[in-house]
């Protein structure tokens, strides 16, 4: 994100606006020009339009596109690095264009291929005729980790076992599209393709409208219809998207897909197998799950029968699948179809299963398990891409020509050790597409990922797909992880799209989310609760710190004792002990370093940064419930957080309170949005419970820290203004009482005045209202629930307090106030525990009965 935004900066201010013209590079692989160097007709219009648009407007549109992508939270996270910043999805505005005519051929080729892979899947987990008759060498199947024996014999209803099929296509030297890889595990990319389309139709509306582009929406409707048809329970089936979680590289797509199709987004911990069914843990108990759209690799889905150390699985899922009481798409075991060795035997497989060879060509494949191929691989490693036969997080393809002599030797040694685990594929020239790079349109090699879904007796292919282009003109290696750009893919019809096909059809065509909001997974609700708590916690700390910075830098000198009281309160409120508690006088005199640590040290729990990180994590985990405005504010918080260090680098001397302002403002915007634009469902209610609880706790701690100790009048006044300032009540106070500072009047305003939205009593009243509305078991008795009793107790405690007693002093402190605040704090913690025990999921950690290290070796 940081990278791409700085990239944007450089794009915004080009020194010389260049003309947007695409010139023939002379490469025979260029998609735009024919053999004579003439622009192909379907490109002509498009390139003319961009030329007419001009560089400056184009840049405006590009910036707008990047803003939309960022606001939508479109990211592709670099796998396995939790510290890496989010990478905003990179979209090039020049679409890839394919004529209807050519697409017709590609489409039928893809349908045929999907049919074949469906038959292949059925055979491999069924009769295995291909092995019995020697069409596929046994080693190619039996030696592959993707062949999951536990999945033998599993059957989905309907004639298709393979539900989703994605294919990477590249333009071969003969001008025909050629298949590079098949994706059958849990194909990703369709959601990104849809997001690209949405953005294109928004930033280039007229160009898009006039270009007669095939729409994508119906493809997604077909996916939904197919998933629905798989349900064992035809009455209101519950379909969920199973994601590995927010750290997964394509999590954006999982949430996007779930939202667009109106499905629940769940993680494995949200699901449980009980009595032969799969259930989702929700606020009001368990709800049955009928269909799972799987984005977790099959090997990780059931620790009882598949990989036993998996934390991403649901124990006993396979037994439910076998009994047909839940359907999973793609079915468990389908990852085996990605084995590139099968490509070597595909012509024979196709003849056996379809009775003919495939129309769509695949890249040629050399398999180390075949002695002749192995020799070829070793002799020609320079010109090959070496791929593992089983794709996993710790394996990747390498291009021979990118290796040093020594690396090549090492690779050859590795291949010779286990030759059957490698294939070699020749490097292909890819078709070149005009791509916007540094102010110019330059040719870049392109790869198209297409998508097919099983649909009424055959397959339906998405009219378009996800095009990705290489970073360099010659760069063949295109993957999302090497920072390449993507493009929308336009299939241009010869006639205009039907009357329903308005520009926004793809965008507005999304079906609504299921109305059963009560059945949110408990995990999501818990995350919202904690999101509220962390946001409030960070806000309270920020306000107090801002006040402290202002006082320390203020004109009026502060007594050492007063400074100690304030700083100790900072430590208590942020829970960063030992901090200033009972610290040396030297530390009180120069608190700067510790204060800055309390703000910015992400490794210290309780610091503002770590609270905000925790808040952002909770937001990611419940992303699918947050509005796009909320996501935008969350991005602002993320930005403000990343700029915090710069703002604080000047130390105390340079008004650090101002560096905190953007964060306070963004947090205010967040709570405002929650208040104004979240529907009052249980998600909102839990978030607000979190906020109110946390605000009460923080206020209690601040009052305790600043008012309980007895101080001389001059100090007292400073402490009271610090109290009022950090609780955002100083202005109301002054309006009401003028300049005179009084303990009773201050306590009245921050504790009992319900017209002050930050007073303790106001929080407690709100809490009381919330807990009365939480879902509860039907009961005709009128007895209060434990959490209702606890809130009522807290509320009553404040209501029955007397200001004269609270302000009374004894032995250097206000004992009654202290007593009240301690009791209140205990009640608040009880409420939090009661709510979380009752409504959140408390999973015990699981372990394997027999530990085994064997399967991973």
């Amino acid at each position, binding site marked *: 994100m940081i990278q791409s935004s700085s990239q944007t900066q450089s794009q915004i201010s080009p020194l010389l606006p260049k003309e947007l013209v695409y010139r023939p590079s002379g490469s025979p692989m260029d998609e735009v020009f024919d053999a004579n160097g003439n622009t192909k007709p379907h490109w002509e219009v498009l390139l003319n339009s961009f030329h007419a648009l001009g560089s400056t407007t184009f840049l405006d549109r590009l910036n707008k596109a990047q803003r939309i992508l960022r606001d939508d939270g479109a990211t592709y996270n670099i796998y396995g690095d939790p510290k890496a910043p989010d990478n905003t999805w990179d979209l090039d505005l020049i679409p890839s264009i394919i004529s209807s005519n050519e697409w017709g051929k590609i489409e039928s080729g893809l349908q045929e291929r999907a049919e074949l892979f469906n038959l292949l899947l059925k055979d491999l987990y069924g009769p295995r005729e291909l092995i019995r008759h020697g069409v596929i060498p*046994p080693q190619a199947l039996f030696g592959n980790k993707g062949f999951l024996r536990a999945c033998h014999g599993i059957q989905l209803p309907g004639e298709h076992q393979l539900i989703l099929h994605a294919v990477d296509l590249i333009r071969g030297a003969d001008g025909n599209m050629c298949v590079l890889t098949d994706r059958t595990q849990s194909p990703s990319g369709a959601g990104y393709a849809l997001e690209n389309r949405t953005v294109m139709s928004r930033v280039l509306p007229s160009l898009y409208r006039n270009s007669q582009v095939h729409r994508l929406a119906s493809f997604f409707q077909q996916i939904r219809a197919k998933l629905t048809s798989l349900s064992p329970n035809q009455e209101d089936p519950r379909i969920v998207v199973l994601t590995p979680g927010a750290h997964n590289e394509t999590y954006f797509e999982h949430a996007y897909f779930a939202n667009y199709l109106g499905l629940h987004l769940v993680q494995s911990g949200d699901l449980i197998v009980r*009595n032969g069914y799969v259930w989702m843990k929700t606020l009001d108990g368990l709800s049955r799950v009928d269909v799972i759209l799987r984005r977790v690799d099959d090997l990780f889905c059931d*620790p009882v029968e598949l990989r036993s150390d998996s934390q991403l699985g649901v124990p006993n899922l396979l037994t439910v699948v076998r009994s047909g009481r839940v359907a999973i798409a793609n079915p468990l075991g389908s990852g085996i179809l990605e084995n590139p060795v099968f490509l070597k035997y595909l012509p024979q497989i196709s003849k056996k299963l379809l009775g003919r060879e495939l129309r769509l060509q695949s890249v040629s494949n050399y398999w180390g398990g075949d002695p002749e191929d192995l020799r070829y691989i070793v002799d020609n490693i320079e010109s090959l891409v070496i791929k593992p036969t089983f794709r996993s997080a710790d394996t990747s393809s390498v291009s021979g020509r990118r290796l040093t002599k020594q690396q090549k030797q090492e690779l050859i040694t590795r291949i010779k050790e286990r030759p059957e685990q490698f294939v070699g594929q020749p490097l292909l020239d890819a078709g070149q597409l005009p791509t916007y790079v540094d102010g110019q349109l330059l040719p870049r090699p392109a790869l198209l990922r297409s998508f097919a879904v099983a649909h009424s007796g055959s397959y339906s292919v998405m009219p378009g797909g996800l095009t990705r282009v290489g970073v360099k003109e010659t760069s063949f290696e295109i993957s999302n992880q090497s920072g390449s750009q993507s493009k929308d893919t336009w299939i241009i019809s010869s006639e205009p799209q039907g009357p329903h096909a308005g520009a926004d059809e793809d965008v507005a065509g999304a079906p609504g989310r299921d109305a059963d909001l009560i059945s949110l997974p408990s995990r999501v609700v818990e995350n919202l609760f904690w999101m509220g708590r962390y946001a409030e916690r960070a806000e309270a700390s920020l306000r107090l710190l801002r006040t402290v910075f202002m006082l320390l830098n203020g004109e009026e000198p502060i007594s050492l004792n007063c400074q100690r009281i304030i700083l100790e309160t900072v430590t208590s409120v942020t829970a960063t002990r030992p901090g200033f508690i009972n610290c040396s006088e030297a530390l009180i005199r120069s608190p700067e370093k510790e204060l800055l640590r309390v703000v910015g040290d992400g490794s210290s729990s309780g610091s503002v940064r770590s609270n905000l990180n925790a808040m952002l994590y909770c937001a990611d985990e419940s992303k699918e419930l947050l509005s796009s405005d909320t996501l935008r504010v969350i991005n602002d918080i993320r930005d403000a957080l990343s700029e915090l260090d710069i703002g604080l680098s000047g130390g105390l001397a340079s008004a650090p309170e101002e560096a905190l302002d953007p964060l306070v403002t963004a947090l205010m915007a967040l709570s405002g949005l929650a208040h104004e634009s979240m529907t009052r469902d249980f998600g909102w209610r839990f978030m607000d419970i979190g906020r109110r609880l946390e605000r009460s706790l923080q206020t209690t701690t601040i009052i305790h820290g600043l008012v309980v100790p007895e101080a001389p009048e001059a100090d007292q006044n400073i402490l009271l203004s610090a109290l009022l300032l950090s609780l955002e009540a100083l202005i109301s106070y002054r309006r009401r009482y003028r300049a005179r500072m009084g303990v009773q009047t201050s306590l009245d305003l921050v504790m009992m005045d319900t017209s002050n939205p930050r007073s303790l009593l106001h929080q407690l009243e709100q809490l009381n209202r919330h807990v009365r509305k939480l879902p509860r078991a039907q009961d005709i008795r009128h007895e209060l629930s434990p959490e209702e009793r606890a809130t009522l107790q807290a509320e009553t405690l404040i209501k029955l307090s007397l200001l004269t007693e609270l302000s009374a002093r004894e032995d250097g402190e206000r004992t009654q106030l202290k007593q009240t605040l301690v009791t209140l704090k205990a009640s608040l913690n009880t409420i939090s525990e009661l709510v979380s025990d009752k409504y959140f999921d408390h999973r015990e*950690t*699981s372990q394997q009965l*027999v530990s085994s290290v064997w399967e991973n070796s």
Partner: protein
Amino acid sequence: MRYRVTHITEYLYSARVSHCYNLAHMIPRSTLRQTCLNNEMTVSPLAAHRTTREDYFGNIAYHFEIQRPHNKLVIKAISDVETGPQHTSLNLDFGITCKQALEQLATVSKPEIHLAKEFLIESSMIRATDELRDFAAPSFDQDRPLLSAVMDLTRRIYREFTYSPQSTTIATPLEEVMRTRKGVCQDFAHLQIACLRAMGFPAKYVSGYLETLPPPGKEKLVGADASHAWISVFSPTEGWFEFDPTNDCLVSEQHIITAWGRDFFDVTPLKGVIFGGGKNPVLNVSVDVARRG
């Protein structure tokens, strides 16, 4: 021969288990030389859900799910099994030679040969190394009948390795077995399979029970029997043959099969996921093989 096998497995946990999901391979399968007449599984505490199915290898897999808190899990499997001898007269000096067998495996395209090759490939617990190949080679003269060679290997493992129940945990890496020359039946079965695969012959792991006979004049003790493991090797012309390297013999009527697979991992008697349970559960297993009629 007709037997009643009583196999009791007991786990004592150091902390409460709230619920668990298990998969047991404890019900004897029926094979060419064995029929499982009757089986009864008892799980305590009572399972909330249970299913029995035939797995990929044709074994009987028993799944159960317990949803009530417990500190102790007991599984009792009682099976009545009728066994017979292996399917040929087993005159080891006849039949195809090692060389012929390898040629046939390489060239003949028959479904059973293609399918048998699954047991030639490296599996999770068994990797055929050069060391194992060197160890096995002396038994496999090109012109020696295959089964005679396998018997010779069986004997060499029996003679050169010490049976030592204390020497190994549930599964020992083969390098360690080779180094210490000690092990239990599982280890010897794994070792022999690795040797056979290294020589190019498909071999599988067989788990089951062995009837032990009391010393003459003594009463047989209940529960003295044990679960056992041995191997089965593939001859391209004659099919599968079972050998027992722990007892230096061909497998007989006294060997009762539960399940087979590529190695122990495929046929683990009991595995699963438990929630809670603390550390170091205590496992007690008792097996009794009694003749019936």
